[in-house]
């Protein structure tokens, strides 16, 4: 139960990293990729995903394009140049956080 709330703060770097590793993704695809990559441990709800994607778009980190697929239009998200830079920064900060947490959990590592 606590796992989901712990992951909550990491959603943005997770999505940025997925977009960095893939040319472009659509919303539903992102939810499925997160679920598969985390082996079911992390599930992004629609209520969390779309507001986050819109926030990233507002910040200029992602841009969108529409395509016609399977009888409907689909909105794809992809990183902007600013987004690519921001992803590198965010992941560096996340790695630093993980190292700090490991020091707290395992003081013998210090």
């Amino acid at each position, binding site marked *: 139960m606590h796992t989901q709330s712990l992951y909550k703060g990491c959603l943005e770097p997770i999505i940025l990293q997925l977009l960095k590793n893939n040319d472009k993704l659509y919303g539903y695809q992102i939810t499925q990729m997160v679920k598969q990559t985390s082996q079911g441990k992390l599930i992004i709800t629609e209520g969390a995903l779309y*507001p986050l994607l819109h926030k990233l778009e507002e910040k200029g980190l992602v841009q969108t394009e529409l395509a016609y697929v399977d009888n409907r239009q689909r909105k794809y998200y992809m990183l902007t140049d600013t987004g690519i830079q921001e992803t590198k920064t965010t992941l560096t900060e996340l790695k630093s956080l993980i190292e700090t947490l490991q020091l707290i959990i395992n003081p013998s590592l210090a």
Partner: protein
Amino acid sequence: MKVVLSKDQIDYLFAFCRKHYVRYYDLQIELVDHLANAIEEKMTANPKIGFDRALHEVYTAFGYKGFAGIVEAKTNALCSQYSKVRLHYLKQYFAIPKVFASILFLTLVYFLEQNLPHPTQLFFLYTCIITVFLHEMIVVYKVRKLRKQQTKELLLTNAGYQQFIFTFITLQIGLHFLLDKDGISVSAVAYYVFCSMVLIIFLTNITYYHVSKQVFEKAIIEYPNAFV
């Protein structure tokens, strides 16, 4: 074999979104695609489930708020984005080269303050109010004309839309408080403050139209179906 929803089923999903208070076409597109993907996956995994049952299960996953949280978050994000863009354009009028137009206006204001008698200064200030008011009317008319081209509502063009602001009354009331006790004189400080307000309001209206036009041009390219 992967299930692909038919055109009728997709149209049903659009109607479903409208029924659940998603009135903006650009948001509907995204939500319909998400619902369709999830339904197709359920119907592929379990062909007996049926479209209606699958839709019910997929919509339930959105939580008790349904689509409301997503609509609110997107609206807030767009409004914030437009505010930043408008502020960016407004700042350009205080940076080279557009700052020279602003300086020209303020120089004119200074020249008139130095050379006009007080009653004529008041006449000049009222002229400023009427000019800004007329300009705002033109801007509101032009933006409404852009909006009339739309056959479907878009959050993209709606988020930054502002109704007519009562600038005329606001400036009049503002001027009333700046007048000296004789009712026709304005102190030098009050004169410059008022003229600066007029300049900022005028530039804000120019910026609003400029950004609105850009947004509409973007909307026509991204959502041509909303302009058919």
